[in-house]
C-alpha cells in the first residue's frame, strides 16, 4: 500500500505539470482581457501600458516558467519564512493577482475558511442525511419512504441553485425575516450570540447545497445497499441469529459504504472549489466567487493558481479514494 501510494505520488508530478501547462495554454488562448472592466473612457494607449505593467508584454513561455518558479519555489519559501522567521524569499516576486495586485495566496488563504465552513458543512450535512436515507430507502425498497426520498432527491438534483437559493431568500429572508440574506464574512464567533448569528447566516446556503449533495449521494447509497442486501453473507449473518439492526447496520452497511466513501472522497475537491452559484446568491465570498470573478476579470495568475490547486486536490483525492478502497475492502491489494 505504501509503495503504491508513493509510486502514484511520483507519477502525479509529471501529470500535474502537464495539467498546469494545459490550463495555462487554455487561459492564454481563451478570449478576454484582464482590462475588460476598465471603463471605455480609458484610452487604448493607456490600456497598453497597463498591460505591460502586468507583465503581459513577455512571451507566454517566459510567463509560464515564471509562474512555475513562483508556485513551486517562491511561494513555499515565503511560507517557510513566515513560519520560521527566516529571510530566504526576500526580494522574490510572489504570484500577484491582476485584479487586486495582491499575492494570490494571501487572497486564497482569506477565502478558504468561509468556503470550508459553508460548502464543507453542506457537504457534511448532505452526507449525513444521505446515508440514512439511502439505507432506509434500500432496506424498504419501493416503500413510501423510498418513493418520497427519490422524489425529493430528484427535485433537489434538478433545481438549479440560483433558483432554490432565491426562493429561500424570499421566503426566509424577506417575508419571514428569519435569516439574513447576506452572509457576513467578517463575523467572528466569539460568544454564544455570535455563534447563533453564524448559524443563522449559514442555514440557507447550507440547506441549498446540502439538498443538492444529499440527492446524489443518497442515490449511490441506495444502489449500493441494494447490491449488498442480496448477498449470501447477509443470510449467513441472519443464520447466526443476529438482530436485523446488527445485520443491516454492521454487515451490510460496512460493505455498502465502500463504494460510497470513494464517491464521497471524489466529491471532496468540489468542496474546496466552492459552489459558484450558491456563493454568489448568498454573497458568501468564498473560493467559488473568487474563481468566477477572476475568470470574468481574466485574472490569469489567480485562475491558474486556483485551478491548479483544484487539480492537485483532484489528483490527490483520486488517490485517496483508491487508497480508501484498499483499506476498506481487504480484498484489494495494490502491491
Amino acid at each position, binding site marked *: 500500500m505504501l509503495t503504491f501510494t508513493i509510486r502514484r505520488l511520483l*507519477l502525479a508530478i509529471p*501529470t500535474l505539470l*502537464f*495539467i498546469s501547462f*494545459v*490550463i495555462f495554454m*487554455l*487561459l492564454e*488562448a*481563451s*478570449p*478576454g482581457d484582464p482590462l475588460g472592466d476598465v471603463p471605455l473612457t480609458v484610452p487604448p494607449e493607456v490600456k497598453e501600458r497597463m498591460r505591460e505593467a502586468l507583465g503581459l508584454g513577455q512571451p507566454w513561455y517566459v510567463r509560464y516558467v515564471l509562474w512555475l518558479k513562483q508556485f513551486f519555489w517562491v511561494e513555499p519559501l515565503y511560507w517557510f519564512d513566515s513560519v520560521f522567521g527566516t529571510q530566504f524569499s526576500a526580494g522574490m516576486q510572489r504570484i500577484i493577482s491582476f485584479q487586486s495586485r495582491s499575492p494570490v495566496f494571501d487572497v486564497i488563504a482569506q477565502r478558504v475558511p468561509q468556503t470550508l465552513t459553508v460548502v464543507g458543512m453542506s457537504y457534511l450535512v448532505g452526507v449525513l442525511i444521505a446515508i440514512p436515507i439511502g439505507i432506509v430507502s434500500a432496506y424498504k425498497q419501493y416503500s413510501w419512504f423510498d*418513493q418520497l426520498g*427519490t*422524489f425529493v432527491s*430528484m*427535485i433537489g*438534483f*434538478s*433545481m*438549479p441553485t*440560483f*433558483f432554490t437559493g*432565491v*426562493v429561500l431568500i*424570499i421566503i426566509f429572508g424577506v417575508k419571514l425575516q428569519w435569516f439574513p440574506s447576506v452572509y457576513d464574512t467578517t463575523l467572528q464567533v466569539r460568544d454564544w450570540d455570535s455563534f447563533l448569528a453564524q448559524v443563522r447566516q449559514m442555514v440557507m446556503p447550507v440547506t441549498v447545497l446540502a439538498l443538492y449533495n444529499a440527492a*446524489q449521494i443518497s442515490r449511490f447509497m441506495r*444502489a449500493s445497499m441494494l447490491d449488498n442486501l442480496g448477498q449470501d453473507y447477509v443470510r449467513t449473518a441472519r443464520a447466526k441469529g443476529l438482530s436485523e439492526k446488527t445485520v443491516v447496520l454492521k454487515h451490510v452497511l460496512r460493505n455498502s459504504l465502500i463504494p460510497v466513501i470513494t464517491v464521497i472522497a*471524489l466529491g471532496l475537491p468540489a468542496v474546496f472549489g466552492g459552489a459558484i452559484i450558491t456563493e454568489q446568491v448568498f454573497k458568501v465570498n468564498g473560493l467559488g466567487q473568487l*474563481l*468566477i470573478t477572476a*475568470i470574468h476579470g481574466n485574472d490569469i495568475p489567480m*485562475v491558474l493558481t486556483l*485551478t*491548479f490547486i*483544484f*487539480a492537485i486536490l*483532484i*489528483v490527490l483525492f*483520486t488517490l485517496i479514494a483508491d487508497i480508501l478502497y484498499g483499506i476498506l475492502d481487504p480484498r484489494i491489494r495494490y502491491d
Partner: protein
Amino acid sequence: MTETERQHRLSVAETIDASAVQAGATAALPPDDPLHAGGETRSQWRDVWRQFRSHTGAMVALVLFLSIILFVTVGPLIWTIDPTYVDIRARNSGFSLAHPFGTDQLGRDMLARLMAGGRVSIAVGLTAMTIAITLGSLVGVVSGYFRRMDAPLMRLTELFLALPLLPLLLLMVTLFREPLSQSFGPAMGTFILIVSAIGATSWMQAARIVRGDVLGLKEREFILAARSIGTPARRMILRHVLPNVLSPIMVAATLGIATAIITESALSFLGLGFPPDFPTWGRLLYDAVDQMIQYPSRVILPGLFISLTVLCVNYIGDGLRDAMDPRIRGR
C-alpha cells in the same frame, strides 16, 4: 431418427424432462416448472419492455415524458403564436384565453415560449448526454480494457476534471461559433456548439464508472471464453463488454440529461448559448428569477417543466436499469 422426429422429441423433452420420459416416470412426477417450459419467441427488447412495464414509477414517468415531448413538438403546430413575437401592449398579462400561460415583460406568449424552449432544452439534454455518454463509455472501456491505455486515459480524465470550465467554453465559442454558424446556420451551429461543449466537458464521471466496471468484467470467464473462440478486440468490446456495462451507463445517462439541461441554462446566461431571443427553459427560468415576486408563474412554469423532465428521465432510467439487469429480468 429423422430430422422431424428428432425435433419433435426435443420439443417434448423441453416440457417434460427427457430422462424422466424415457424412464416412464412422467406419470409419477409433477409437471415441469412452467417457467422453464416457455419456448415462445422473445426478443431482448420485448423482455426489457415487459419488465419495464411492471415498474409503475417508470411507466408513469414514461407517459409523462412522452406528453412533454408531444407538448414541445406537436404543441407549436396547434398553438401557432410565434414565441419571439413582441406584443408590447399585452406585456405582463396574466393567464387569459389569448395567452393561457400569460406573457412576459415584452408581451411574448409564455405558452409558445415554453413549447419552443422545451424543444431546445430537451434536444440539448438528449444530444449532449449522448455525446457525453459515448465519449465517457469510449474512454472508460478503452482504459479498462487495454491495460496500456489505462494510466494515460485516467490522467486525461483528471486533466479534464481540473480544467476551468468557463475559459474552456469561451475558447470553444471563439474558435467555433462563426465557422459552425456559417456551415449550419446560426441556430443549428449554436446547437452543435453547445451540445459538443457540454458533452466534451461532462464525460468524465461516466468514464470513471465504466472503467471500474470494465476492470471487473475483464476478469470474468466469458471474456476469456470469447477470446478462446477467436473474438477480435473490436468485436469483443462491442458485443461482450459494452452490453454488460450498460446499466451503469444508463444511470450516468439519466443524470447526464438533467445536468445538460441545467448547464445549457447556465451557458445561456453567460452569453455562450443560443441567440438571446431564442427561449430555452433554463433561460426562461433564469430571466424570471428577478421578477419572482411579481410574476411567480414565470419562474414556476419553466422550473416545473425542468424538474418534471428530470424526474421522468430519472424514473425511466431506474426502470430501464432494473429491466436491463438479466438477473432481475430472469425472475
